[in-house]
């Protein structure tokens, strides 16, 4: 295999073509029409993971709602780890952004009189979730992508994989990307870079996340010297299908689905979640909060009362008593998903479910405008941590987040770019170095034995066992050690594929190396946070400790490659920390 090198240059470079990336590109292009913009994406933009979001996007618009209420729901939902100035900006701009998407053609559901319709959503006290049937993310992403097509100042690099950020004179000035189609390396210089590469759910074995969510952007920033914030907070969804990780929505439980253990027993009654009734009761049993349900599952497994499935322990979601008619009218998409992607018919069969990793609250540390501490580098979307999600994200907050902070990052990075001089002279050397490195690291034909999939599977198991729903000092220390071993084994991976055109195995290798970085920061941040807060539950420190840990963790990369964890304060404006109360 022989790599080639090509160079191009833009004012503003966006890495990631999902919701956040496209929104940033359009914002920059509209505000600064002269700006020359590039978007790099490892998949065609409309394939990005935003496409999978189903439920909806929150933005307060109804007269009985207020921005403060949305802010409070978000902050209490996030267990007071949110930066409140960011939340205030977020709730204010979310409705505007959603409306802007309407003006671009997004097919939001409507009231009979033609106004936007909103629905209730978990953790939100008022109805404020905008939706486009049960394919909200899909419609948002396609609207953004199609709108993007009319902007001639935006150059797309579709199916280019960013492998490295170019940093010179303490400033990020572009990236190196591998063109999948040809195997050619492209050095793309820019006066400012925005990372919008999405989350990293694939670090875990069972996840709702698409195969592309491997934390590449987090690793790119981390290696370039930017800190990763609050990496210990990973949201689990209690009812995912095992093996595929396909999400079974909460609506199933609202309609009256039961969760059963291997004895057919509604085990939630043993976990302080109320007494079983035949009909669903709000805030009790199956309708308890997401994290509590996920935690009960773990306990049930520990007691040996879960069902052993081919892909590990599961419990059963029982819908059979609802009958075919209810399932068809109220939950058609759930039945379709089960039938089409799992070969299970919930009308007659029990559906195996388990908690699955769903969303990354942490990410690249940014301020309210998307700027990271590293000059010239911005981030937005799931890759970033602004932070409005704190220790636990509320459902339907992340789609508006990518619009609001995508747009903010686009405008601010655009303005920054206009103030910069042309890129430095040594970038080309860096590009050549990267080429040599890739060649050395991945492409010799002999003397290597590790398989990518083997290391990946071990990493996922380590993370599940050591840094899952419950963690402890012991489990995390063990995980950290094992991850280090994997980091050391990584250079020995052998690629079956030595060719240039569309070498997806090479991409998998890059992705694995990103995931190892991200996993390490997660484990170290979790180890250092000796308290339980939101999605981070330590069995050895079961209580929240505001005195010591009302703070963001920041992981930076040390010279030896391991993370260094420090803390920065949480911004509190109007809502002092309080008890997180459910269902009152």
């Amino acid at each position, binding site marked *: 295999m022989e790599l080639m090198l090509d160079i191009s240059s833009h004012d503003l470079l966006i890495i990631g073509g999902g919701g956040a990336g496209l929104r940033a590109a359009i914002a920059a292009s509209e505000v600064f029409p002269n700006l020359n913009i590039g978007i790099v994406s490892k998949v065609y933009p409309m394939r990005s993971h935003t496409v999978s979001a189903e439920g909806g996007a929150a933005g307060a618009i109804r007269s009985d709602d207020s921005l403060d209420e949305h802010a409070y729901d978000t902050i209490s939902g996030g267990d007071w780890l949110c930066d409140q100035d960011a939340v205030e900006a977020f709730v204010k701009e979310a409705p505007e952004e959603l409306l802007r998407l309407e003006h671009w053609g997004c097919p939001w559901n409507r009231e009979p009189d033609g106004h936007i319709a909103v629905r209730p959503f978990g953790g939100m006290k008022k109805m404020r979730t905008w939706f486009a049937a049960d394919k909200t993310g899909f419609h948002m992403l396609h609207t953004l992508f199609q709108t993007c*097509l009319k902007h001639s100042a935006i*150059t797309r690099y579709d199916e280019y994989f960013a492998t490295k950020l170019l940093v010179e004179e303490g400033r990020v000035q572009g990236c190196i990307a591998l063109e999948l189609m040809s195997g050619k390396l492209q050095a793309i210089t820019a006066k400012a870079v925005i990372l919008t590469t999405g989350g990293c759910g694939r670090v875990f074995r069972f996840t709702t996340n698409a195969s592309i969510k491997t934390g590449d952007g987090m690793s790119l920033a981390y290696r370039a010297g930017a800190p990763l914030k609050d990496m210990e907070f990973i949201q689990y969804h209690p009812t995912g299908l095992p093996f595929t990780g396909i999400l079974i929505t909460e609506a199933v439980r609202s309609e009256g689905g039961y969760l059963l253990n291997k004895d057919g027993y509604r085990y939630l009654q043993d976990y302080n979640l109320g007494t079983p009734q035949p009909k669903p009761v709000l805030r009790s049993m199956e309708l308890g909060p997401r994290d509590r349900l996920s935690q009960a599952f773990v306990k049930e497994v520990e007691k040996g009362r879960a069902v052993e499935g081919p892909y590990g322990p599961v419990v059963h979601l029982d819908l059979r008593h609802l009958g075919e008619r209810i399932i068809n009218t109220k939950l058609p998409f759930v039945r379709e998903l089960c039938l089409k992607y799992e070969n299970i018919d919930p009308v007659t069969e029990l559906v195996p479910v388990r908690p699955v990793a769903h969303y990354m609250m942490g990410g690249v540390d940014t301020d309210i405008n998307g700027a990271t501490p590293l000059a010239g580098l911005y981030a937005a979307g799931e890759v970033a941590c602004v932070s409005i999600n704190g220790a636990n994200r509320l459902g339907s907050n992340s789609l508006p987040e990518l619009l609001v902070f995508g747009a903010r990052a686009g405008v601010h990075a655009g303005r920054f770019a206009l103030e910069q001089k042309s890129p430095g002279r040594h970038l080309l050397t860096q590009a050549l170095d990267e080429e040599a490195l890739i060649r050395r690291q991945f492409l010799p034909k002999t003397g290597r034995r590790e398989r990518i999939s083997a290391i990946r599977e071990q990493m996922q198991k380590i993370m599940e066992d050591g840094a899952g729903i419950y963690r402890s000092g012991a489990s995390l220390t063990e995980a950290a050690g094992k991850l280090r071993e994997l980091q050391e084994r990584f250079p020995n991976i052998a690629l079956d594929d030595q060719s240039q055109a569309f070498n997806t195995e090479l991409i998998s290798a890059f992705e694995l190396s990103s995931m190892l970085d991200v996993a390490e920061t997660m484990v170290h941040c979790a180890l250092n946070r000796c308290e339980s807060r939101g999605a981070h539950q330590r069995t050895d420190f079961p209580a929240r400790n505001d005195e010591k840990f009302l703070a963001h963790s920041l992981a930076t990369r040390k010279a030896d490659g391991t993370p260094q964890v420090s803390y920065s304060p949480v911004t509190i404006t109007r809502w002092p920390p309080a008890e997180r109360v459910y269902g009152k």
Partner: protein
Amino acid sequence: MAIPTYYPPRAYRTRVSTYWWLRSWPYLRFILRELSSISVAWFVLVTLLQLGALHRGPAEYARFGEWLRSPLMIAGNAVALFFLLFHAITWFNLAPKAMAVRIRGKRVPPLFITVPNYIAWLAASLFVAFVLLRG
């Protein structure tokens, strides 16, 4: 939106075979449907010849009648009838796809377009038969 140039790798292009329509039943059905147009032209031609014969007097017309009775013509017309029925059925069944009729904002169900089509077909056929057989 501009797309940067790339080194084009050697992509493999397949050519569609000349007999692509033999590859699957839906394609074959399609080509048969399209070939029904020959039957259309054929019978219009027969009708024109018939009118010509009618124009040129009883003797010519009798000879034309004779020709119609020849086994070859019977066979040809039987085939034509088959294709024309095929044409009519596919035509009426596809009509609702081509016309998205909306009444008060709701799309009219396909049967509401197909059924009147079939009724019209029946009525037209009966009318033609009635006019010709009345005598």
